[in-house]
């Protein structure tokens, strides 16, 4: 049986891993390769690196650090950040990334998803979605959420975008629930369940992990395929080996 994945997320800014609360006030956590190796040794199933300023700055991710990570680790990793076309994606994949994740550029030009899926296959095309509930109760997509001053509301319902992204060739969806991100109060299970009902490709829960129970809930209650977290791992609040051993005791298939 396919195991549920635990994915530490590393937000990259100016060559360092950073972490902010609710996507704001970023502080440096450590070096990229150093953290990648630490999480690999601890039993992370996969790593995701978001170059959080690439899209707002209109530049592609720096492939030099992608290559350094690829040389160092033997678990899969995904890279996101300003990938705007097939050539950008090819450079990142050639540098050794296993998957590419697109977010803001896909909103600018949804056909990018079709192009990447056509060129590399759906299995390495991940669509990241930053989503927040509006006053009218609808979840809508946000763009350029890596930079406070530039974050934009897009007139797209999150669930509609999930359906469209899959139709265009997304092989995996990462749903960043911005309302719970950084709060450590748990994943947004209501939103994840709604997403799950509209998502037949792997769904990655993101935003809000603070305790081991939150991971269990994302897997059991929202049927997420993977759970992504940053601050609890960076701060050492949750140790991955202990988390996986406990999830295993809860009857959840995890790689140990």
């Amino acid at each position, binding site marked *: *049986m*396919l*195991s*549920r*994945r635990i994915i530490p997320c590393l937000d990259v800014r100016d060559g360092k891993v950073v972490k902010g609360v609710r996507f704001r006030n970023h502080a440096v956590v450590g070096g990229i390769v150093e953290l990648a190796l630490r999480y690999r040794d601890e039993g992370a*199933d*996969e790593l995701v690196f978001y170059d959080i300023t690439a899209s707002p700055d209109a530049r592609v991710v720096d492939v030099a650090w992608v*290559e350094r990570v*690829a*040389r160092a680790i*033997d*678990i*899969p990793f995904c890279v996101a950040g300003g990938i705007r076309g097939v050539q950008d*994606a*090819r450079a990142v*994949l*050639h*540098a*050794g*990334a*296993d*998957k590419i994740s697109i977010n803001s550029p896909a909103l600018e030009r949804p056909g990018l998803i079709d192009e990447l899926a*056509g*060129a*590399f*296959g*759906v*299995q*390495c095309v991940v669509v990241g979605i930053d989503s927040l509930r509006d006053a009218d109760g609808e979840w809508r997509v946000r763009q350029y959420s890596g930079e406070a001053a530039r974050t934009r509301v897009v007139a797209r319902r999150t669930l509609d975008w999930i359906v469209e992204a899959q139709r265009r060739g997304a*092989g*995996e969806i990462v749903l960043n629930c911005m309302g719970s991100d950084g709060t450590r109060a748990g994943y947004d299970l209501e939103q994840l369940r709604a997403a799950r009902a509209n998502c*037949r*490709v*792997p*769904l990655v829960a993101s935003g809000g992990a603070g305790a081991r129970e939150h991971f269990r809930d994302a897997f059991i209650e929202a*049927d997420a*395929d*993977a759970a992504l977290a940053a601050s609890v791992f960076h701060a050492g609040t949750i140790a991955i080996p202990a988390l996986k051993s406990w999830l295993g005791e809860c009857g959840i298939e995890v*790689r140990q």
Partner: protein
Amino acid sequence: MSVVLVDSGGANIGSVRYALQRLGVEAALTADPATIRAADRVILPGVGAAAPAMAGLRESGLAEVLRNLEQPVLGVCLGMQLLCVHSEEGDVDGLGVIDAGVRRLRGGDGLRVPHMGWNRVRGVTAHPLCAGGAEGGWAYFVHGYAVPVCAATLATCEHGETFSAAIGHANFMGVQFHPERSAALGQAVLRNFLWQTPA
């Protein structure tokens, strides 16, 4: 030991190359027929879609070169699928060196396609590629198409249906999972391919 990675214009060749470096082997990335023919081991990596990958191999003439190789050849993921007779992905004929077909994973209730993540390898046969292989070891898979269990199957995996995790016929071998990203098990498979398969 000279090892080449076939540059078929696809992506994600870096990670295989680095995995070999971690084993102390420097592999050349090449599309040159003479270099490929002269190598001790040939690896056909692949992330991408079957139809453009095969079209590229045919246009460059590499399809014929690969088909006629006599040294151990390892296809990885899409590279393994290209060794087969035909793929449903893009309805395209492969290199045809392993008598197997490639079909879309059916998926189903609670079964996501692509099959993406860590899964256990079972049914490990006594083949040099699987030497020392522990039944139930974890490997990393990312694919939407698979080779059903057939005479060429060396090991299996299960995702709603049982499919080939590894296949082999004569000097041609393939793994559906990504050895370069499968931690200890992946390293063992690459080591076996380099030093356990008969030259």
